[in-house]
């Protein structure tokens, strides 16, 4: 039955008499869905800012000389790119946008456990963002997003304190979200929704939240200590003041390694959802995927020293960190194999979300495998602090997290807005992103092994060709990221009305209207089936119904 009009009385509607009331209804909302929209807009803004900084970096690197900007400017550009992308985009994006919107819907709840804390977390995000923006506007910071001491504490003449304050405040936003999710998932599941009936996205958000809550306080304290040393000259990290510079690295990476799992675990959750829906069958190895998220969360706390193999860390420590780093790769591999097995005997469609999911698997495999290269100390000695590392983490963070985010955004766009995006443009932009991404970052693996260090403003001539290829790719990638903004906005005006369940997917979020009403469920559902409860013949029936001209 086709729906031709958007439903009335959704969370997007309100009865505000004046514009000012309308603004207040958004800025003081406690509805998790509206907060997700607030996050969507602000996170997207920061993403564009970080992308601009990346553009500046790549443009400069077209030539071996430093002819576009001074070294100081360049150092501020790559630092801005890193700080914004890590703290203000990658860490919050999937939890705060998709997680906030979907967690209550997927478990049959009317909101998160602490709606006001949810709003607070957005204000904390914005507060942190304002500090970071101020630092950028007032001249930037040139320490690299890793803030290594004693350069950042005693030598840098840039806005270190402002930037650190921004990251510090954002940390509390992150913790608030994590606490909210843990409590919500424990206490607010609908009747009948046992742990092993949960969608894998919820398992992923749960594991992520555990990591957030345990790891983020460490970076908070570390940044605070850095501020104390920089402002009052208390010797903590600077040996000239009696401190230990390597201590900073241990404290910093103790958070920042689990942080990368905060970035990728939610992405894994999204992929599970996409693969299931667009194969029209249950995810293969449900329990293994669920437990692998927890395994990654735990092991992720034990490998931070693999960022420090040449830091003067002992041989013994390095070997232990290397060994555990090998282990942490295995649960990720298990997920990839299970997703592949899900495709078998499925009925696969090539809709945009699925294109992103398949692209994710390909790119994440490359990123993850190169992580193993880096985990082997003998090889890492040569490639650490080179473009090899840069390529590795962009494969997992962009090829991984961002692809999953875009796939999820396209998948749940009809639920969030009630409208379908233009499928042709969606597919095109997915392919543009895939091609642009590989052209940008694959040459960087070669550059790294050839010996080009990272954070280099100028470089020897012989590295130019690969740099030019990389910059060319980045222009294509940028196009791929900008296209969705255009067609998503257009869809709000003239996109096809989606209806409750345009993908014919299982999952509680698809049982209510698109967009959902403010209170989500008229009646709290009672769950009696497994997750992804496609009937055994669902795939068969879907294929049988296909006709030339049906969506691919």
């Amino acid at each position: 039955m086709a729906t031709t009009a958007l439903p009335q009385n959704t969370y997007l509607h309100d009865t505000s008499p004046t514009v000012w009331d309308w603004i207040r209804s958004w800025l003081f909302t406690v509805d998790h869905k509206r907060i997700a929209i607030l996050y969507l807009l602000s996170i997207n803004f920061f993403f564009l800012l970080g992308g601009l900084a990346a553009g500046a970096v790549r443009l400069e690197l077209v030539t071996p000389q430093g002819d576009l900007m001074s070294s100081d400017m360049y150092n501020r550009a790559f630092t801005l790119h890193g700080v914004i992308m890590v703290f203000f985009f990658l860490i919050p994006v999937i939890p705060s946008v998709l997680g906030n919107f979907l967690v209550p819907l997927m478990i049959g709840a009317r909101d998160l456990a602490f709606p006001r804390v949810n709003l607070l977390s957005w204000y904390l995000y914005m507060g942190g963002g304002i500090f970071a923006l101020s630092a950028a506007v007032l001249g930037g910071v040139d320490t690299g997003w890793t803030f290594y001491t004693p350069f950042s504490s005693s030598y840098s003449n840039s806005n270190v304190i402002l930037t650190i304050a921004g990251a510090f405040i954002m940390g509390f936003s992150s913790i608030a979200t994590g606490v909210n999710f843990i409590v919500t998932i424990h206490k607010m599941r609908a009747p009948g929704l046992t742990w092993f009936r949960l969608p894998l996205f919820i398992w992923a958000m749960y594991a992520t939240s555990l990591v957030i809550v345990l790891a983020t306080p460490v970076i908070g304290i570390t940044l605070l200590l850095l501020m104390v040393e920089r402002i009052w000259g208390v010797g903590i990290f600077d040996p000239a003041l009696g401190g230990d510079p390597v201590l900073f690295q241990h404290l910093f990476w103790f958070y920042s390694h689990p942080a990368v799992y905060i970035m990728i675990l939610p992405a894994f959750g999204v992929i599970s959802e996409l693969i299931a829906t667009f194969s029209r069958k249950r995810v293969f190895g449900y329990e293994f995927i669920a437990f692998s998220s927890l395994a990654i969360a735990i092991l992720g706390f034990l490998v931070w020293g693999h960022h420090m193999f040449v830091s003067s860390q002992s041989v013994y420590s390095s070997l232990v960190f290397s060994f555990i780093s090998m282990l942490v790769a295995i649960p990720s591999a298990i997920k990839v194999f299970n997703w592949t097995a899900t495709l078998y005997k499925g009925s696969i469609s090539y809709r945009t979300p699925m294109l992103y999911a398949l692209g994710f698997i390909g790119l994440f495999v490359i990123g993850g495998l190169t992580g193993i290269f880096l985990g082997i100390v003998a090889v890492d000695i040569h490639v650490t602090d080179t473009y090899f590392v840069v390529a590795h983490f962009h494969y997992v963070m962009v090829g991984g997290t961002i692809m999953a985010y875009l796939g999820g955004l396209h998948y749940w766009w009809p639920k969030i807005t009630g409208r379908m995006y233009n499928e042709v443009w969606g597919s095109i932009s997915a392919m543009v992103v895939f091609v642009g991404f590989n052209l940008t970052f694959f040459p960087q693996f070669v550059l790294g092994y050839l010996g080009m260090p990272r954070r280099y403003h100028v470089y020897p001539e012989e590295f130019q060709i690969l740099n030019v290829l990389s910059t060319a790719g980045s222009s294509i990638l940028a196009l791929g990221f900008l296209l969705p903004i255009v067609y998503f906005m257009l869809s709000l005006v003239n996109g096809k009305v989606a209806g409750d369940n345009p993908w014919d997917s299982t999952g509680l979020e698809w049982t209510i209207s698109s967009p959902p009403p403010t209170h989500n469920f008229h009646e709290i559902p009672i769950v009696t089936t497994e997750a992804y409860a496609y009937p055994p013949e669902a795939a068969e029936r879907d294929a049988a119904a296909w006709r030339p001209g049906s969506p691919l």
Partner: protein
Amino acid sequence: MQDFPLFPEQASTFAGPIDTLYGVLIALSLIFGGVLPFIILFLMVRYHRSNQKVDRTNQIHSNLALELGWTIIPLVLVMGVFFWGAFLYIEMRTPPPTSLEVYVIGKQWMWHAQHPNGKRENNELHVPIGRPVRMIMTSQDVIHSFYIPAFRVKQDVVPGRYTTMWFEATREGEYHLFCAEYCGTEHSRMGGRVVAMSIADYERWLVTPGEVILPDGSAGAAAGPIPGAAQGDPMALAGGQLFANLGCAGCHRSDGAGTGPSLQGLFGNQGQMADGSTITADEGYLAESILNPQAKVAAGYGPPSVMPAYAGQLSDDQVNQLIAYIKSLSDNTGADGGQPNATAAPGAPTTTAASTPVSTAAATGGAAATPEPAAAPIFDAALAAPGEQIFASIGCVGCHRTDGVGPGPSLVGIYNAEKPLADGTTITADEAYLIESIINAQAKVVQGYQPIMPAYGSQLNQSQVAQLVEYIKSLGK
């Protein structure tokens, strides 16, 4: 675009094994990263919803055997590469005892290297091929990283501590030297080149005049012989001179009877600290104890230690020289200074094959630094070197300071000089006079000095006295 290299040149003994391991990792990755996407593409096409001919019945949603299989097989593979890499890594962190030692200091935004014979260079590193080289490195300010891609080696240099790495170059040539830890504005320009040369070329290079170091650690051009100084000194010799001039020998007597512990045999061995802990006396410990003696006080010598702190008074170069000297007092140097005297004696015959290249260079180093061909030495260098050690270790230098402000007269230029004595007569300070004054100082007291010098007749044997005399002669005419 003739050649499109994927690997840097292989110019060290590590490069081949590391590239092989890397190649195997790539091969394994191609298998997984190639086969897996192929399987995915295959499944994507075969089971696309438009394909109505495939069998989609009897779907399976879990299979324990498959799960265990694709858990265990990757586990075995990663363990395999882990152990391979681990053994290679351990080798990379175990420098051979015959390594040539080069001291490196990194600072914003340049590299400074000092070879054992004293030759210094900035932003360049000359090394011999076929000989292991161990770099002993520190930073003066922020963290940098010493990276030679062609050798596949990299090591952070950290302020406040020493880090080491070693390699053995295999191919002559010039290679990139990069700083690989972001360190500020000129990070990308903080580099230079590594020049690997044959051992013969390297020895020749070592003794060509460049910058020479003077005993006070400063750099100078080879202008002319400076009384009391050895031109282009081996670091250990420069360190020995510092040890004397700064008065270290006054407390750190080699017979252990001084206020501070003897430093003989200290380096490389374990030491007991006053707080009960045990340390290994490595370069980092020595540097720390010079700059901040209160940090780790040896058992029986405090706390608090009475040793003054030298932080702020010595350049990093000077600290490195002192470390080289103290290492030469120990058998555990692990470097070419196997015997205490081997690096201290320009021209002294050496008995260790490993130290031959450097000592030979040092032998000519002293002479080559002077503009004109060296005049025939007026003293026996083979005896003067141990003589100098005695001069330092029994504390002569405490009174006979080269700047003349000690209780005893400076001995620079004393040999064969005319000296008025306290009793009004004048003597020529020939060998006999020197010998007598050592054995029985009260015999002929120099005018203006109190008769307080102890007699060493019963403490030193004839050959030791002869060595002291030769050393005093070496201080100039």
